[in-house]
């Protein structure tokens, strides 16, 4: 199942079939439009364009370059996490602890640096180890116990939620961490995780760049490496994947650790852009990441999806969330609107896939 996906070109298929070696006469080539539609990210791409055009028309403020930078910033903080979450979903699992894991990472970095009066990079590294450890724990529990990822990560979600609060209170005496903005290394770390730069007079956040870099990297891994093949294989059918020699255990655990890496990165962004962290944050974000991945064409059952789809999924989230404000509408409806969008995207994806793959 993974092989057919692998053989298809990354983003732009060649315009004409040409004398390629695939045309051995056994299968008729279907029209380009249909082949394009069959790709999971095309539906969401069209959806994102539609939402963008819609808000460009209805909310004049969106046409401003700096507004677009703001929308992209919002999308990037969702998008950076939606990428590993999407890869994990393609690999057949999902992670409910992803939202609070972001806060766990930020709290760890902040408290380690502050309480030990260390250079903040020490905190950043320790937080990375902790985040990867959380991923390792999730993956290891899943593989060892055979429990569904829903249960394993629900457990981790609750554990982290409690630990975030209790440990922060125990260590700092408060439920928020202390301000670390005057500590050594803060400026460097801020430059890496939370800085911004000017492009044609518009202030763009560095997270937008990281988001696109990670997306490109994930696309390459997924389509051009053996590891990418393994992800599709374990998500499609674990047992047959194992039978053909795919290291299922390694793939699953590493995917959870990848989510840990994403949580670390976003956590560091939050820490270095807001200086302190409240321990109760992050709850509910995991569902937003999952929704962005699903809107981006990743099946909840695994085995299908892309890395570029969730980029558009996250963009749709950011666009709708900020677009409603730019348009001056009542934001009470925001969540309802998102729900409709989620269902709509899934149904359209399903319909497009069915129509396009029909001979």
């Amino acid at each position, binding site marked *: 199942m993974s092989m057919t996906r692998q053989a298809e070109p990354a983003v732009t298929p060649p315009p004409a079939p040409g004398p390629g070696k695939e045309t051995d006469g056994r299968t008729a080539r279907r029209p380009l439009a249909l082949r394009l539609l069959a790709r999971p990210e095309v539906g969401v791409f069209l959806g994102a364009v539609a939402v963008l055009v819609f808000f460009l028309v209805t*909310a004049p*403020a969106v046409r401003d370059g*700096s507004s677009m930078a*703001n*929308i992209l*910033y*919002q999308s990037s*903080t969702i998008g950076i996490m939606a990428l590993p979450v999407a890869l994990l979903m393609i690999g057949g699992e999902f992670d409910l602890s992803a939202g609070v894991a972001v806060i766990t990472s930020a709290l760890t970095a902040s408290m380690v*640096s*502050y*309480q*030990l*009066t*260390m*250079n903040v*990079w*020490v905190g950043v*590294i*320790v937080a*990375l*180890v902790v985040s990867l450890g959380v991923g*390792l724990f999730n993956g290891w529990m899943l593989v060892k116990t055979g429990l569904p990822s829903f249960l394993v990560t629900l457990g981790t979600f609750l554990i982290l*939620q409690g630990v*975030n609060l209790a440990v*922060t209170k125990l260590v700092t*005496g*408060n*439920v*928020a961490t*202390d*301000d*670390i903005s*005057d*500590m*050594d*290394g803060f400026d460097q770390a801020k430059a890496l995780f939370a800085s911004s730069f000017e492009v044609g007079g518009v*202030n763009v956040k560095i997270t937008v760049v990281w988001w696109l870099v990670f997306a490109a990297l994930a696309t390459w891994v997924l389509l051009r490496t053996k590891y990418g093949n393994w992800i599709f294989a374990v998500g499609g059918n674990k047992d047959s994947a194992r039978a053909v020699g795919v*290291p299922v*255990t390694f793939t699953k655990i590493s995917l959870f650790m990848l989510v840990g890496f994403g949580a670390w990165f976003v956590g560091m*962004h*939050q820490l270095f*852009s*807001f*200086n*302190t962290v*409240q*321990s*109760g*944050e*992050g*709850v*509910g*974000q995991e569902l*937003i990441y999952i929704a962005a991945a699903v809107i981006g064409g990743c099946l909840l059952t695994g085995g299908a999806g892309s890395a570029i789809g969730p980029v558009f999924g996250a963009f749709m989230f950011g666009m709708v969330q*900020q677009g409603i*404000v*730019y348009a001056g509408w009542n*934001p*009470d409806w*925001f969540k309802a609107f998102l729900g409709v969008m989620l269902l709509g995207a899934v149904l359209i994806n399903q319909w497009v896939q069915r129509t396009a793959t029909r001979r």
Partner: protein
Amino acid sequence: MDRSYPRSRKLASVVAVAAAAALTLAGCSSSSGGKDAEEGGANASAGKADTPRMTVALVTHQSPGDTFWDIVRKGAEAAAAKDNIKLIYSADPNAGSQANLVQNAIDQKVDGIAITLAKPDALKDVVSKAKAQNIPVVGLNSGVSEWQKLGLTEFFGQDETVAGEALGKRLNESGAKKAVCVIQEQGNIGLTQRCDGVKKTFEGDLETLNVNGTDMPSVKSTITAKLKTDSDIDYVVALGAPFALTSVQSVSEAGSKAKVATFDLNKDLTKSISKGDIEFAVDQQPYLQGYLAIDSLWLYKNNGNYMGGGEAPVLTGPAFVDKSNVETIDKFAAKGTR
């Protein structure tokens, strides 16, 4: 299982590299900030009562990890320590669960209960059960218009609407024309009342803006978006300290001229007021609410007193904190008690 060998070796090497990096970095400790730079301050202490040990339950609608409630709890703990009281603290934002926690306290046969009335109707039954058992119940923080109806003996807090009105008047004084009231939790009645109060007295335009309080980057970009769509906005009114601090970033990012005012304090906020990033804060003195609620139950048990005479609430706010008085408050806020 021959595959497992290289895999675990790979994992081990990742961990080893990370640990090595951490150790290398451990050599360089921060020369500025951090815990070492924190000034140690003596905690408020007023000796200890020699009255018989009593047990009091404090049951709030706190959601986990909120800085505000942490301060309420510290006030309650200080009073409990002074009054020789064993304090049982529990909290749940869900009204039904909060009622169960009150029932739990009744079952433990406590000598007094302090509760918040965020959703008074859900607590009506357990309050009457407590009274049937002769357990005095006092209210704090939310429910200023409901506490008497439920038969509570005392109430400590601020009237959210009154606090909002005070803030609205203050906006008029500073010549504000258009303000935006940022609500970080949709459907929270206390937050809505604050904005409504501001609207009542503020002579300019007031709009409300809902943001997702559990996701700071989203809070930041939503406020930025609002300020960009409307450059006439000259005041951002936040309803909690962390959100006020984020609003300051949004204002600078949107290139807006708006000033920031807020409800509630924390230790980073007092710093921002001294720096002039935030104009003023309306403080309802959460420490005082927790402290008085517990202390009043001690007074009631040992001397039959009730504050407010059972008729009027004891108001703990609105107290304004601005550049003129932030100096005196800052040192208490730094300890996380103000």
